[in-house]
């Protein structure tokens, strides 16, 4: 369970998150929605441990995640094993020479045997439809292909919590459906999926919970899919995001 209490985040240029209180239960499929610049990516950075809130506390299960706690390499690495993060800009995330090496990087880090690594890589490439790309150079892939390779490379670490920053961007409608189905399968297998998206229409049948931000970086609503169904006005508003 991820618990955020009174979280605010300040960039030198201004506020990105204002007094956010949230509890995200383990095993949920959560959609983060809101206008551009409302702070979705920033929230995901905090959840992943890459950034620390300016004020407020962040807790995973019973463990408070603070800058001090993250200074310990063991603890930081344990956090990274538990939480995977697909960046909004996949270009930044791919740093190996081939797609195959990219996906293998994580499992190699886990110290798995080479055959197991190869197995995992093949599985992840197949799940994301990237098997044909395996010898390509990541930085030369198309935008949508990069997105899928980035997901495969994070998936290979088998994280319990998956943070995804607009993973559907640049994918065709069909590929979006397939990725959402995959995420749903992962969630049914017990993983927590937290996904920022602008695509309410696509995700509304998959996410079980919606966290909605205002343009002024405050929390607008935090409600279940069922509760959202009872609010057609809000749905119409979200469809425009």
């Amino acid at each position: 369970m991820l618990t955020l209490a009174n979280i605010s985040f300040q960039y030198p240029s201004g506020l990105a998150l204002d007094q956010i209180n949230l509890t995200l239960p383990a095993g949920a499929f959560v959609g983060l929605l809101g206008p551009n610049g409302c702070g979705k990516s920033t929230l995901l950075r905090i959840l992943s441990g890459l950034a620390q809130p300016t004020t407020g506390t962040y807790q995973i299960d019973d463990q408070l995640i603070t800058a001090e706690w993250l200074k310990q390499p063991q603890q930081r690495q344990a956090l990274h094993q538990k939480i995977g993060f697909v960046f909004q800009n996949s270009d930044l995330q791919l740093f190996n020479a081939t797609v195959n090496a990219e996906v293998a990087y994580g499992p190699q880090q886990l110290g798995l045997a080479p055959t197991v690594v190869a197995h995992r890589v093949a599985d992840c490439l197949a799940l994301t439809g990237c098997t044909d790309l395996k010898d390509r150079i990541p930085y030369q892939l198309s935008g949508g292909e990069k997105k899928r390779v980035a997901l495969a490379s994070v998936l290979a670490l088998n994280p319990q919590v998956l943070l995804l920053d607009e993973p559907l961007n640049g994918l065709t409608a069909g590929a979006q459906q397939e990725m959402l189905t995959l995420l749903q399968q992962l969630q049914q297998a017990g993983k927590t999926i937290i996904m920022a998206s602008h695509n309410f229409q696509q995700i509304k049948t998959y996410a079980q919970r919606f966290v909605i931000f205002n343009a002024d970086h405050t929390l607008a609503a935090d409600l279940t899919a069922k509760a959202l169904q009872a609010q057609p006005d809000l749905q119409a508003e979200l469809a425009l995001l």
Partner: protein
Amino acid sequence: MTKKTELPTWLQQPDRPVQPAKHHNFLVKNSRRLAQLLQQLTSPAGIGQPLLKTTPQLQLVALLFTLLLILTSQLGWQLWLLGLYLLLNCLSLAGRQLRRFLRNWLLTCCVALPLILPSLWVSGPNVLLRFCLRTWLLLGFTQYYQRTVALPYLLSGLQALHLPNVLILIIDIACVYLKQLTTYLLASLEAVELRTIAVPKHPYRLIAGLFGSLYLKSQTYALTLNEAMEVRGFNGRYQPTAPILHSRWSDYLVLLPPLLLAVVFFLEK
């Protein structure tokens, strides 16, 4: 996405936690350094206060004048006076800035040493000593300037001194470019950090790979930047945009110490 596959069993159950390595800080350290560089490139915050508050253009003139003095000083007492002046300047730096200044200065001095040493055989120890002192002073003053002037202000200084636009353009683009690349590298390091659970087996191979991909990306970035400027009508004419800070009389005080030194040196001759 084309294939639908059932989830493999390993994905359906959590991995056992790996025993992470104890000493694995190089990513964190490098990220911190990059963040510092980025700060220096983008904002004056985190930059030290110079001894005498002034405009960037006058600070640049004072620096150039001081460097000229160092280059023309031959005598021990002259170098000693210049050293005192540098020391005085450094005292204005806050603790953290001072430490950073000293570390970088020492580092550059050490790097310069092997280049200077051969003169020992050519012209003897006395000349070598003077040569060393002068090089270290030059490095010290430049380092001090770097510590106290943020890059955006350097641009505005150059502009106020009416330097050719082409030169400013080159520096401006270099700044933009460096900023982008630093941001890029910082984010890439974060990505590496997120997927580096245990100690990297081959940290240097990792770094090499990172720089390889950075090189490829930066090449693409440079070309794209060029195209982006072109499609928006860039035709080689450049109008600098950094705000010019006008100097008041009190800003000229920064020229006083090197001028005084010059007068003293001249009179003693």
